[in-house]
């Protein structure tokens, strides 16, 4: 069985707790970003672009049997690492659960406070897109 959103978030918080220095945390994010499967060219289309980012971010969304499946990519490795965390938490989860989920790990890891601005890195926009898509998926609209 797949771990729940809450369990995954707790795991992320624990992983970060082993990395006291911010530089180590970024190095970890970058590593996560580098490991993320690159998005195939045919999914790098305008409708997958997330607005409001300093970097270019793609978010590909699919809904299957009431679950949300996500792929993402970015030209910034840090943003890609953040996207990898979001995918870890949300991709493959039931749309209902994604919709209801409280995203706590950004606060608990301190990522929230530390990242220069959510508007700049587009995290907020990504989360909004994921939530909107989850609502459509749960309602059987996609």
């Amino acid at each position, binding site marked *: 069985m797949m771990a729940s959103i809450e369990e995954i978030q707790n795991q992320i918080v624990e992983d970060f707790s082993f990395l006291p220095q911010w530089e180590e945390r970024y190095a970890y994010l970058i590593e996560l970003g580098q490991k993320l499967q690159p998005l195939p060219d045919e999914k790098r289309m305008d409708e997958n672009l997330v607005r409001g980012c300093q970097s*270019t971010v793609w978010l590909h969304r699919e809904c299957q049997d009431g679950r949300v499946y996500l792929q993402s990519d970015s030209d910034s*490795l840090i*943003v890609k690492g953040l996207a990898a965390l979001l995918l870890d938490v949300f991709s493959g989860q039931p749309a209902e659960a994604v919709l209801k989920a409280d995203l706590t790990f950004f606060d608990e890891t301190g990522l929230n406070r530390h990242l220069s601005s959510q508007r700049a890195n587009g995290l907020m926009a990504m989360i909004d897109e994921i939530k909107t898509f989850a609502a459509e998926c749960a309602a059987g609209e996609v």
Partner: protein
Amino acid sequence: MTLNIDKIRSDFPILKSSVNGKPLVYLDNAATTQKPQTVIDAITQYYTKYNSNIHRGTHHLSNLATEAHEAARKTIQTYINAQSSHEVIFTRGTTEAINLVAYAFGEAYVNAGDEVIVTEMDHHSNFVPWQMMCERRRAHFRVIPFDANGDLKLDVFANLLNDRTRIVAFNHVSNSLGTINPAREIIRMAHEAGAAVLVDAAQSVQHIDHDVQALDADFYAFSGHKIYGPTGIGILYGKESWLEAMPPYQGGGEMIDLVSIDKTTYNKLPFKYEAGTPNIVGPIGLAAAIDYLNTMDYDEIMAHEDETLEYAREQLLGIDGLTLYGNSNHRTSILAFNIEGIHHYDLGTLLDTQGVAVRTGHHCTQPIMTALGIEGTVRASLALYNNRSDIDALVAGIHHVKKMLGK
């Protein structure tokens, strides 16, 4: 006497801070500058000793506040060498000053088929208000392009000028390229064609020539917070003849003479353009910043800033894979760059972990980024208090990030 930069640094309390356990290296001065203690003290003094509404009080504190607020206008007048202090209008910042002119000048002088010229290197604040005005007045919006070095193409400008050109607006210094535009020449050309000129001095007033009469600018706009003063105060200088002739921008208290149901008449300059209770302390803080600068020799400030800039360019150009943007021979204070294979956002974020504050992105100049064919840059920008150690920290930081990312 040469400037004592260590002493100057000690005048800015924030420069003693640490960020992420490292001493702060503040290189985001084009976004906003830090404030010397004298500015902080002037603001505190105002609130602790004589806070009061101005221009209408009958009491002691109101008189003190009015006096300080109006004395500040004189200090600013002298700094930019305006002929009269009533040509100095207080605004919220450069952006509001430009919007004021775009509105009031547009209403008075721009009609369908007329033309307005800006440049491809203008900040969105000196771009969008003119676009909006052109739409409202059904005028044509024209743009002077820049060349590979980041210099304006004055031959194109000459061809754009004609008898329908009503106003030309340009930044004296580009916040993304550091180019110092040939202001006097641009203004002369515009005037010969019968057009008025607005100079966006947000990035120049603290570094270079800021004599509005020598420039012969019709309008001149800048922000207090980029010249060591507080946020929320900006200056619009306008030649008296224009300011008298244009309609007010906003209505309300302070800007009126007589109000009746049938008709309202407006106050005299500068109050005609200052509706409502103004930012009272803002000008006081800005005047304190100018008083602080006035304790130094301008030529020495410029020489120090130039020396730091050229040192920085040399050091940065020594880094493998680094591209510097903006290579005009006339330049100041801005270092915009990218490093091959590293996203500007990643570089900026990782520099921050080392205490180095820079800015990344398009810097509110998307047309420049489009012209350069890039998404954004890292931008380090200098002020009076920056020295070679700051540049060395930046360069060491970049090497560190390169190593971390295997580039």
